[in-house]
């Protein structure tokens, strides 16, 4: 079983936090979004026997060797996604994709992310066909909530909150059968009493406010669920005795990041 850490580090050198998370949760693969190139994180993780994995600049990806990540080519607009063949100790192969969704301030309309995610799933389908399996996991900061149309729509990522539909992992749309992803984040959203109830806190002064947003997510093909223990997927709000939130329970971006990290396991 390999353990993964996913965290939007807000372009900060949060190496002390990352290293503590790696130690505490016995992490094998580190997936950082909004990673600052040349950050001290690289040096700190190298000291922990991690090596950097080839990725787009906005991502920082490191493995301790228990999972081998081989880049596979996928040209996604603005370099906002990265694809790897992942091979673990059991020899089982998967496809790992990292995503950074178009941000909500500059791209407030959901249909931009819908188109972006559709482009990513087009590449996923191509590689699944080429590699002959559908053991695919997509992780990242999607800049979308699990219920946003960009996440749910068959025109977008097509990640829904059920594992199968009458035993099938696809559904009819527009006259054709379309594969979907299972999104386990549905079960986590709002589960905690406050801090850690999602991964990002954003409070404006609109009449309708969600306050907590589940922007950081991991979605899985139903075909990969046997190797994806759902109870190992967690939002992390503290590292040891140190909270990643301020006294009000909000992600402490002065001390760490405005996003909370996620850990998950994948039995490869």
């Amino acid at each position: 079983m390999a353990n993964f850490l996913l965290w939007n580090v807000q372009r900060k050198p949060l190496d002390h936090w990352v290293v503590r998370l790696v130690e505490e949760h016995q992490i094998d693969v580190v997936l950082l979004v909004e990673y600052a190139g040349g950050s001290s994180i690289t040096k700190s993780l190298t000291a922990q026997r991690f090596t950097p994995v080839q990725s787009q600049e906005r991502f920082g990806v490191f493995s301790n060797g228990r999972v081998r990540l081989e880049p596979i080519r996928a040209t996604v607009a603005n370099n906002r996604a990265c694809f790897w063949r992942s091979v673990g100790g059991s020899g089982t192969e998967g496809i790992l994709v990292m995503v950074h969704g178009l941000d909500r301030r500059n791209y407030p309309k959901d249909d931009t992310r819908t188109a972006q995610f559709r482009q990513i799933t087009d590449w996923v389908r191509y590689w699944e066909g080429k590699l002959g399996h559908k053991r695919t996991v997509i992780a990242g900061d999607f800049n979308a909530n699990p219920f946003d149309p960009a996440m749910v729509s068959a025109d977008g990522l097509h990640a829904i909150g059920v594992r199968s539909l009458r035993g099938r992992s696809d559904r009819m749309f527009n006259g054709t059968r379309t594969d979907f992803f299972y999104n386990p984040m549905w079960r986590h959203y709002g589960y905690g009493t406050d801090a850690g109830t999602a991964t990002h806190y954003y409070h404006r002064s609109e009449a309708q406010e969600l306050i907590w947003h589940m922007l950081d997510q991991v979605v899985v093909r139903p075909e990969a669920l046997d190797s994806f223990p759902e109870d190992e997927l967690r939002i992390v709000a503290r590292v040891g005795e140190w909270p990643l939130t301020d006294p009000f329970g909000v992600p402490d971006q002065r001390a760490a990041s405005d996003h909370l990290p996620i850990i998950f396991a994948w039995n490869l």
Partner: protein
Amino acid sequence: MAGTGLWPDLRVETRQRGMKQILEEVGGELMEMTNGLIQFGVDSTGDPGDQGLRFIHHCSLRVPRVGFKMLLLNVITGPTTFPAIVVAASGERQENIPDEESLRKVLATIFQSEATKETLHSLIVNFG
């Protein structure tokens, strides 16, 4: 002009080009330019949403030889061909496009963008 039945004369009502035809014409030369390697294809879906009927024309780059298809942009319309909304996978978005001439200008910007150039180059290098 109405026919003898209750339905309108659809030969008259549908004589104008629809968005799908416009898009196929605008993007069609890509196949010639790449010696048949890359096609610009359009799949159209209808969505009877809360705000009324709308059509989404999914415009993809396709490499038929290897069964590859990748969304480039969506064009969204109501029941009429215009006004239209163009949404590119790279994030560009243009609303209230009033006519075909304006649509062509918006599409030219996306076709000639660095993101599209990089994608086309990648497809040619990898699948050519």
